[in-house]
């Protein structure tokens, strides 16, 4: 069986680094892909803040999609980035939450409306309240 590569896949991959062919190939027992450039890829980002509007560093940020979770932490400025999401998810397929010891989550606020096919990152802030 030949390894089939769709035209759409190739178009999407053309911006990446050295591509030896396919979205599912391998060199070195892993990947052939050398993609230095994810600028066209959709991602979620935002800030974790407290109820006073101050940023909260080192809070755990969890994005949930179906049977998968992506977990990261806010940085020293309270910012986080989740790099591998689709932007065309339906609202009920996606959830974002944050947590930190001594806090409980107060809410999330989506600053950018998700637009299908958009290259724009989606900004969601997450608010924590001191317990």
């Amino acid at each position, binding site marked *: *069986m*030949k390894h089939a590569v769709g035209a759409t896949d190739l178009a*999407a991959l*053309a911006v990446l680094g050295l591509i030896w062919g396919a979205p599912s190939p*391998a060199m070195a027992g*892993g*990947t052939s892909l050398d993609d230095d450039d994810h600028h066209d890829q959709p991602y979620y980002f935002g800030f974790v803040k407290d109820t006073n509007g101050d940023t909260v560093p080192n809070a755990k940020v969890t994005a949930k999609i179906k049977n*998968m979770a992506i977990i990261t932490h806010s940085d020293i400025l309270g910012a986080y980035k989740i790099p*591998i999401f689709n932007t065309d998810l339906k609202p009920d*397929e996606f959830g974002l939450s944050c947590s930190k010891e001594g806090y409980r989550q107060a809410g999330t606020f989506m600053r950018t409306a998700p637009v299908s096919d958009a290259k724009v990152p989606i900004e969601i802030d997450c608010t924590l309240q001191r317990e």
Partner: protein
Amino acid sequence: MRLRILALAVIGGLAVVDAQSQFNAVGAQVGVPILAGQVTSVGDGPMEGVLVSVQKAGSPITITVVSDEHGRFSFRPEKAPPGQYSLRIRAVGYELEGPHDVVLPSDRTTSVHLKLRKTEDLAAQLTNTEWFMSMPGTSEQKRPLIECMSCHTIERIVRSKHNAEEFAPLLRRMANYANNSTMARVQPRVAEREIPEDRVRKVAAYLATINLSAVPTWQYPLKTLPRPKGRATRVVITEYDLPRETIAPHDVRADRDGMIWYSNFVEQFLGRLDPRTGEHLEYAFPTLKPGFPTGTLAMEPDGDGNWWLAMMFQGGLAKFDTRTQKFLIFPIPAEMNTDATQQSMVMPRQSHVDGKVWTNEVSKQSILRLDLATGKFESFEPFAGTPKSRMHSPYGLAADAENNLFFMDFGDENIGRVDAKTGASTIYPTPTPNSRPRRTMLDSQGRLWFAEFAANKVAMFDIKKETFKEWDVPTPHTYPYDVFLDKNGELWSGSMFSDRVLRFDPTTGQSVEYLLPRQTNIRRVFVDDSTTPVAFWAGNNHGAAIIKLEPLD
């Protein structure tokens, strides 16, 4: 499909190498060197950090020490028993003058004075790392070339005379070689891969600017790394040459009895070396898919100390029962088996918990799990629901006490977890983007230590805290392949590029880099904690040798 379990008789003793049994048979006094000397050159006087290697006539074993700040070096008789030796050195920019042979009697110390002169062929001495440092070009231009070292050195590229037009078909051809190809054994893929033409042209155009297509010699200065200094000179390195140049040791580990086992990346053998005697054995197992590339990548022990091998393009897993010395083979069933099927990794460590062994399906970017009771494989798609355009590749594997899986996303920038009970996945992006985590180990405190191949970093992920720590490796263009945390909390790493072994203390941030005597393509690394100081082991994947590195502190 009916489960096929193939029990195979052992093919043993294919090659027995020269025993090092003379170790204790010498009359030399303990503590007195058998060979001692000094390295000097006309311009520099005594030279620190020169690697001096001795190989006994007819022996596959080479011993290397490094000259100190006074240019002095010595060999102990327990490392180099009496006999006739050939002698060589490694010091970038220099070569050895005069005779290269020495006879060592047992009753006294032989003294030698090694005079070095400047080399006229510096290019022949550069590591891949030094070529990457020397070549002009942007990091974006150089980055695709980090894949080339899977099969050959960068020297092969820069010495070539192909222009861009001639390079294009060459690149297309090489893209269809299996990654388990070496210069000694090239293996074409069966499932062909298409290559976007613009990518080929771009890479070909760059290669033609760094090689000898238009000029008689390189127009850019050849940069070199400094020789070892201080602590990096206090080491003894033992290289065990394997009996065929086609043997490509990939993963190397010691068992409980101190025997060294390795996977062979291009041949259907499991290898075993007795480091005390030099005895070498190979155990053969069958080819499942004739006409497909042969050889195995990952080799991991299960809880009983049996060895598991990931069978790459042969499609499946092999278990070597160390008690019966027989193989059990678990082929990928027909309905899951394609021409692109590839198992590079296996994780049987916690299979006693639930009777399951983890592996990967590289061609589908997915995880597979073998049920030992039924021989069936189930598939997990840890990235289901994420953008298809984003390349992932579950690679280095580890399992926790409940046999939950942790994997390195070598295609991208994530650590992943697959829950053993629910199959749900959790993805943890590394702080550094495009890091391409490669191989990993899980320590007793629940910390994953791993190499960030493309980020030139080593890193730690704390499973409980779900947080990362990352450290730059000291030398640029090292591209670490793997790490191992020893009993002292020090991290060891190797590379396909730098011919150096990194020893790094994450608590103090201090590091030592030990230079190796030869061009050395290192994959999996292992540290034997049973001695003090510890001993580092790795294979030279392109050099048909096993390497033991013993620091003196």
